[in-house]
């Protein structure tokens, strides 16, 4: 076990697990953050009731992947944790404030009588702000953070970059697209029509921002340009943008047609492709241009202990999370026997 873990492949395995966790987080929480982003755009209060009911049983499980990502970074790649978190202090804090408001809005909105609009706004604004902060962090990561003597060495606003703003807008559009896809799948009637309509706007924003982010990061970060445009990478990587374009076209054509899960699944595929592009741009850096995954790893005995848990527990976690989605399969019905109401009596 220990010899195996000292091989050069170990960081690859843990990097793969980390990428997996980030992917699951982005896709899963993307759908419920996306529903939040669309929340106030929905025309009727009844739509909002249904939208919230569709994600109520699963949002907590989705958000747990954010904690998993953070703790996995701490446990497996501590350098990433203790350099990047102070570097992105303000966007992380504001993301957390936003997640607090949208998280408690689930319970409080259900109980509220007079001030439901307050919790509607909290849910919407929390979802948008949390998403935008994630974009700021992503853009700042691609741009790079100042590091000296193995610690973050910048100021409170060194995270800020044009790329971050573009990524923020792109993520808002992208999560809204996943959310709209989810609503097309999980609702029907007027709510579904609303989701189909707004999916167009979300797709335009996502597509435009993906193009801008790609272009601007290639223009402003030379290392990224070299990665993509030097031969033979150019030939090997050309399929990534081409497939992305094909998925965007398929999404546009499929919003009103095809299976009801189609928009949702294609939106997930679009995000997966975006992540592939991101990994191409950043690999093998944990802290871009400063710390690689090989330099930033924790001890072999810590990784071995961790690996046992991941190998045994994560498959079980995935199984019962899938089971939770299965229990609430099909179109969401508005049974406000929530918290053990009339549904079971």
């Amino acid at each position: 076990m220990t010899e195996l873990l000292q091989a050069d492949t170990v960081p690859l395995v843990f990097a793969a697990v980390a990428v997996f966790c980030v992917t699951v987080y982005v896709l899963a929480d993307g759908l419920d953050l996306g529903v939040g982003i669309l929340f106030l755009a929905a025309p009727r209060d009844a739509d909002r009731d249904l939208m919230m009911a569709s994600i109520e049983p699963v949002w907590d499980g989705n958000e747990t992947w954010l904690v998993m990502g953070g703790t996995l970074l701490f446990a497996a790649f501590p350098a990433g944790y203790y350099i990047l978190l102070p570097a992105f202090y303000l966007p992380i804090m504001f993301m957390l404030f936003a997640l607090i408001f949208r998280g408690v809005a689930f319970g409080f909105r259900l109980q509220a009588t007079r001030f439901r609009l307050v919790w509607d706004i909290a849910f919407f604004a929390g979802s948008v702000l949390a998403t935008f902060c994630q974009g700021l962090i992503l853009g700042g990561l691609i741009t790079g953070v100042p590091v000296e003597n193995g610690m973050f060495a910048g100021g409170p606003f060194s995270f800020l970059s044009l790329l971050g703003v573009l990524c923020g807008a792109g993520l808002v559009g992208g999560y809204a697209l996943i959310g709209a896809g989810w609503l097309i799948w999980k609702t029907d009637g007027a709510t579904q029509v609303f989701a189909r309509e707004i999916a167009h706007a979300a797709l335009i924003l996502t597509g435009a921002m993906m193009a801008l982010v790609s272009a601007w990061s290639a223009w402003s970060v030379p290392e990224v340009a070299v990665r993509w445009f030097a031969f033979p990478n150019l030939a090997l990587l050309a399929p990534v943008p081409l497939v992305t374009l094909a998925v965007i076209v398929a999404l546009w054509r499929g919003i009103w047609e095809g299976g009801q899960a189609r928009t949702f699944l294609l939106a997930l595929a679009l995000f997966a492709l975006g992540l592939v592009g991101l990994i191409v741009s950043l690999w093998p850096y944990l802290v871009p241009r400063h710390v690689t995954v090989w330099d930033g790893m924790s001890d072999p005995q810590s990784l071995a202990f961790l690996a046992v848990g991941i190998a045994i527990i994560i498959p079980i976690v995935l199984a019962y999370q899938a089971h939770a989605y299965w229990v609430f399969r099909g179109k969401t019905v508005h049974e406000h026997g929530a918290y053990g109401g009339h549904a079971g009596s």
Partner: protein
Amino acid sequence: MDAVALSRLQFAFTIGFHILWPTLTIGTAWFVTVLSALWWRTGNTVYRDLMRFWMRLFALGFGMGVVTGIVLSYEIGTNWAGFSRSVANVLGPLFAYETMTAFFLEAGFIGIMLFGEGRVSKGAHFFACLMVAMGALISSTWIIAANSWMQTPAGAVADAQGIYHVVSWWDVIFTASFPYRLAHMVCASFLTCSFVIAGVSAFHLWRGQHVAASRTAFSMALWLALVLAPLQIFIGDMHGRNTMVEQPTKLAAMEGLWETTKGPAMTVIAWPDMAAQKNLYAIDIPHLASLYLTHSWDGQVQGLKAVPPADQPNVPIVFFAFRIMAGIGVVLLATAITGFVLRLRGRLFTARWFQFLTMATTPLGFLAVLAGWTVTEAGRQPWIIYGALRTADAAAPVAAGAVTTSLLIFFAVYNVLLLAFVWFAGRVALKGPIDSAPPTREHPGMERSTLGAFTTSPVPSPVRGTDPARA
């Protein structure tokens, strides 16, 4: 203030606020689980109504716990980068295991617990409740293992750069103070919840509403309190004697003991003066501390002056927080025993003064938990890893202005949250278990949507052909 002091203040505030919610939800999750089992096995609707009632309150507290807990998992990096760098090999895997074995378990079954009653069998619903309740316990086990390692580190060695490397995972997890701290915290949660349940039930008994359900819950809660209140004092005594061995300076601060003494007195109340290194206005009971700490008349207990003043914690904070915690413990024990006496005399459900008394005890458990954590966390200062790493050396390279901003926002946001929680949970609690009301009355404000929108209103059909089957 500098960034270190601000970060300490922020962490103390955010973790202090967070601990309220696990305290509430660990106990109530198990209460709901027991009620779910009773409803499943007996079919008695009193248990069903109680289960649904406490599930509503549990759900509100659980949501608060989730969102305030995520903050902590990131604050350790954002504000305590030096600490993270030093201990990532040791504590990183413990946190990762907490997420994998506890948070996911809770999150995976909370949906079925809260919203799935109509979709799964009673047995499956009980299982979901059980998994959520287990998740809460597993979570406390890992996090207290991590905290105990910081209090009584073992099983890892630091290299020249101050980075810890694990030698034995068993020793890292099962440190000297771990079993006592875990037992003390879990018991505190159950004890707090038993008085919350008793207090809410007492309110309904006093109002003469939901009588059958409230009597059941009141009786169950007071039986539990009768067992747990003395048990908690017993565990606390063992924990204190463990602290005397493992963290003598902390214990000396709790006792307000400056000189290393044979047969020390118990200081009931005093003002510990750190500048003068002695107590002012002390009321002492001779030899009593020696009796309960060393179980002998003339046992030796180390005093605060055994270490230089720079290595002492803030004594008044630890000293008074300990007295608040222990005082509340005594009040809760007295209440539980009084309830037992009334039960023997057949007046448990009718003595109105006792209903007021139990209502008054509702918030006390939370205060005791906050005071207890203040004792253990303030008491190990100036160390973040006891005897090894100073808190001042553990901070992150963040600007004081940024921390001030986040601290002020946390303060504002958490106060708004607490108000909202007290408002909504208070309303649910005062309304009480609904015996057999129609669903529209169960959720005021939902009438509009429940009555019409999804059943009768004509909905525009999608413009172009869509597959009606589930995709």
